[in-house]
């Protein structure tokens, strides 16, 4: 295994589509971003020899959807007071965040080659003073949600339409500070605040169910005054529809339970607790990239089939 080097950075800058792009175009854009981000993130973790690949991969589809098509943010104006805010509360998936920020023009792509190196700006947890687009220096869990609530209160005081999104891990919800903040959010009727839970059901070494069960999470969030939506956290179309249409209930903050799998969609990682912060071997890296390419081809085939009248149905009937 060689150390992380510039030649391991292959992430293209994807940027944002025009606001006039169709939903299908947006979804295709998000899918390609998510694929590229996963490939790059795999390389970062493999060559740097560290990282949180499992949690990265459960969160990447949410990140790609937010930055690809939802957030009103502009890398040319990172300090615009009216920008939407995205706060990554599960700061240990910094690798996924850096790669996403690079994909959408906030971070020079070549800087990814410094990930976790001595004196790099790309610490194992994000630092807003080093990386444009990072809104809070997270890492200790249970911090992002109160910060997001504070920003949403500031926006409300300003009479602003800007939105606040925060991504929290599900295990992280064991921290009581989240529930303090959720009470504050509903008390203030912060309906431009959206909490997205990366519901991968795994924490460091076991399931949330085995550790300190969160269920019924939907009922808990509802009891704390949130409008609760459940979504497949790897379905870009579903994520796009939910995240771009909040608030779902005027006067209430939104709680999106994004059902995900740690390590998704890599066969040997997905849902496997061992991949919390395991590093893929050279063979595993190759296999993962091969799988991502195959999935992309399958997706393209499906899109072609869907776009060709009758084809999809015929194929389906033929198999039945």
């Amino acid at each position, binding site marked *: 295994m060689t150390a992380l080097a510039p030649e391991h950075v292959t992430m293209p800058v994807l940027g944002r589509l025009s606001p006039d792009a169709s939903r299908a175009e947006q979804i295709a854009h998000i899918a390609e971003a998510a694929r590229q981000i996963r490939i790059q993130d795999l390389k970062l973790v493999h060559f740097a020899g560290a990282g949180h690949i499992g949690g990265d991969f459960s969160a990447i589809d949410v990140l790609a959807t937010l930055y690809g098509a939802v957030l009103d943010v502009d890398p040319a104006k990172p300090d615009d007071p009216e920008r939407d*805010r995205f706060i990554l509360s599960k700061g240990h998936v910094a690798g996924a965040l850096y790669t996403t920020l690079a994909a959408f023009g906030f971070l020079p792509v070549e800087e990814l080659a410094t990930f976790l190196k001595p004196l790099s700006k790309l610490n194992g947890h994000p*630092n807003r003073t080093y990386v444009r687009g990072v809104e809070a220096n*997270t890492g200790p869990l249970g911090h992002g949600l*109160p910060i997001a609530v504070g920003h949403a*209160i*500031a926006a409300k005081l300003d009479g602003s339409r800007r939105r606040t999104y925060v991504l929290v891990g599900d295990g992280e919800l064991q921290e009581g500070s989240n529930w303090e903040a959720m009470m*504050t959010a509903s008390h203030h009727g912060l309906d431009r605040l959206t909490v997205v839970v990366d519901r991968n059901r795994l924490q460091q070494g076991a399931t949330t169910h085995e550790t300190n069960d969160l269920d019924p999470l939907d009922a808990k969030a509802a009891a704390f005054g949130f409008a609760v939506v459940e979504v497949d956290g790897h379905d870009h179309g579903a994520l796009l529809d939910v995240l771009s249409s909040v608030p779902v209930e005027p006067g209430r903050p939104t709680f999106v339970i994004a059902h995900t799998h740690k390590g998704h969609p890599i066969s040997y990682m997905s849902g496997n607790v061992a991949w919390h912060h395991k590093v893929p071997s050279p063979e595993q890296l190759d296999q993962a990239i091969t799988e991502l390419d195959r999935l992309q081809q399958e997706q393209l085939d499906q899109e072609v089939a869907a776009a060709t009248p009758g084809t999809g149905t015929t194929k389906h009937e033929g198999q039945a």
Partner: protein
Amino acid sequence: MTTTGTAAATGSIKDQPRFDCRNAYVETLVELARTDHRIVGVVNDSVGSSKLDAFKKAFPDRLINVGIAEQDMVGVAAGLANGGRIPFVSAASCFLTARALEQIKADVSYSDRNVKLCGMSPGVAYGELGPTHQSIEDIAWLRAVDNMTIVVPADPVETAAAMRWAAEVDGPVFVRVSRMAVPAVHDEDYAFVPGRATTVREGDDVTIISNGTILWRALAAAEQLAAEGVSARVVSMPTVKPLDVDAVLAAARETRGIVTAEESTRAGGLGGAVAETVVAHHPTRVSILGFDAFQPTGSAEFLIDRAGMSPEGIADAARALLA
């Protein structure tokens, strides 16, 4: 209490009228908020104990009371700062600095957010309520946090001046706001300069470095020493971090020893900062007065006297240094 209550008044400092710094705190906060719409208050149910009713009345939308939830309180303040507001977090210092220490470290200091932390009733102000409510540790643990200015005002004038400076500067600040009545030490035209000490009494035998509720006691101790022919310099050190190193080294060079006196732990407080400085640059004798252990029940005055920080106690420490 017949004197006029200015620092220039004649007679012993210990006979001057005394004031609750919280009044200056809230008056200044209201004044600042009138001219700067960005200023908001953030509290943990501590509206009454922070004397913030006047602020609440003037700016009902700008007082965010998260209830009894300190982690949320500091995180919300960091988020408000992200949104361009200037939050003054106002809560009992024990809960603010202990319960929310990780939020102070990560969300405020490390994230470099423009949040002002106002530790109400610090030290042994809540003496009778016991060590859970006493906050003698706040200076020590905040001194260990990078990117945090720590101010311990000694009277209402200094409290107001520190608040005005805190509102102007872009960055994390911790200000202690005492409920213990203290005499006025500074004149009305006193200018607070962060990181700068003020010699409030000249002297060349020994130096007493102090701040907060103990500063007037240091002055009273100097009065006693003067009666014995001992010339004690009294240095007011409102900013514990960053420390005025020059003032400390001048005291080390020009007098025969330094007594520090503060309403906090002997470990890691002002005394520790002074000792670290002289050890590195100009070793001299230093006597550190403060609290060593969880304190028993008693009034703040009682506990401070008991810890050797009555005027007599401070004078005794100076005498011992010179002996």
